[in-house]
């Protein structure tokens, strides 16, 4: 039972971290509970569908369908997070002032925080489909179903508890700094997802590695350790990353950062021209 619980925990843990960051990042937004629970439900249904069609997905695109699928949904999540973060950096200040109040943009329905519904759904779908396949595989092998169920419940409870702990930790951040903190976390999560997507394309031999591994930190933090997994969910940690993974990570980080700066510059009042003539030398 504990073997089952451990594997289920490992999958739930990563999804739970992403969901708790999303939950903290959308604090004070109208209907966020509906979005998040909608994302959870859609993720669970998606996980079952993906597990059901695992065979067909695996066969697709001459055997690399699974990698293309994983990379595709990861890149979609990167897009959704970018959209959300940019929207928040435009509206976040007003929201931080009146945390809990419904901002005009949210009321008018133009708010992309619903984009995070997809991010929650995708996080759960990816990890959940592995749980479904794993449990199905064990029960097909004759494992006792009550033991599997008990182990799964234990694993899910432990993973959810870890997510809840992170959420409660994030809530302790003062409201004024809350959104910049959760937005920074989301940008890191997005960059990490891009790097994971690149990793899948390398596994499918669709992208070159550009040097692999760049380093090996598995002695310090192994991929399979709890710390390694937490860092994997938060920043896409890989103990032996390839150059291509780092490139994807950097492109998303710099890309979202630059877009936020441009947005801020657009909003700022035009700078006054102090100097009429160019300074004269000599």
């Amino acid at each position, binding site marked *: 039972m504990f073997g089952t619980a451990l594997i289920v925990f490992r999958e739930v843990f990563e999804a739970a971290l992403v969901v708790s960051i999303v939950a903290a990042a959308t604090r004070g937004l109208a209907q966020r509970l509906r979005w998040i629970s909608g994302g959870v439900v859609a993720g669970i249904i998606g996980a079952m569908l993906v597990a059901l069609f695992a065979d067909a997905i695996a066969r697709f695109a001459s055997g690399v369908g*699974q990698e293309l699928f994983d990379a595709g949904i990861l890149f979609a999540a990167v897009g959704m997070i970018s959209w959300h973060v940019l929207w928040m950096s435009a509206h976040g200040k007003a929201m931080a002032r009146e945390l809990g109040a419904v901002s005009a943009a949210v009321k008018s329905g133009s708010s992309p925080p619903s984009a995070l519904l997809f991010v929650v759904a995708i996080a759960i779908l990816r990890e959940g489909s592995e749980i479904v396949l794993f449990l199905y*595989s064990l029960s097909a092998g004759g494992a006792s179903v009550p033991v599997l169920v008990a182990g799964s419940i234990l694993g899910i409870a432990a993973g959810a508890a870890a997510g809840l702990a992170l959420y409660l930790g994030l809530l302790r951040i003062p409201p004024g700094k809350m959104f910049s903190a959760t937005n920074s976390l989301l940008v890191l999560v997005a960059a990490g997802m891009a790097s994971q997507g690149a990793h899948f394309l390398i596994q499918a031999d669709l992208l070159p590695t550009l040097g692999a591994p760049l380093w090996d930190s598995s002695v310090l933090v192994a991929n399979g350790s709890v710390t390694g997994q937490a860092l994997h969910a938060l920043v896409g940690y890989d103990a032996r990353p390839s150059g291509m993974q780092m490139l994807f990570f950097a492109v998303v980080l710099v890309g979202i950062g630059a877009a936020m700066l441009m947005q801020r510059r657009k909003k700022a009042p035009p700078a006054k021209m102090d100097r009429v003539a160019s300074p004269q030398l000599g």
Partner: protein
Amino acid sequence: MKVMSAIALLLGLAELVGCSQEKLPEQDLVIEGHRFTPSEITISAGQKVRIKVNNRDDASEEFDSDSLGREKVVPAKSSGFVVIGPLNPGKYPFQGEFHHETAQGMVIVQ
């Protein structure tokens, strides 16, 4: 929007790279009775290798290796492949995550 088009561009590039990929040396790996055969695969350093995983069991399996950085679900009665390398000399254990008590193997890079 910019990010989306960048992603589309990258996927397009990936497609091009995929089309031009060279023929890689292939290595067969069979899963039967939740065990890998052969349980040891020897490849040369700096070489990319395509491992064809053929799952003959009635249960799906996940080819999983922390050290190789690979994770791939191979459904029951089907096969899939994983490209590994180029690697430095050393030992790289792998396992079938769903039945790791018995499904253990090792890639030896020389």
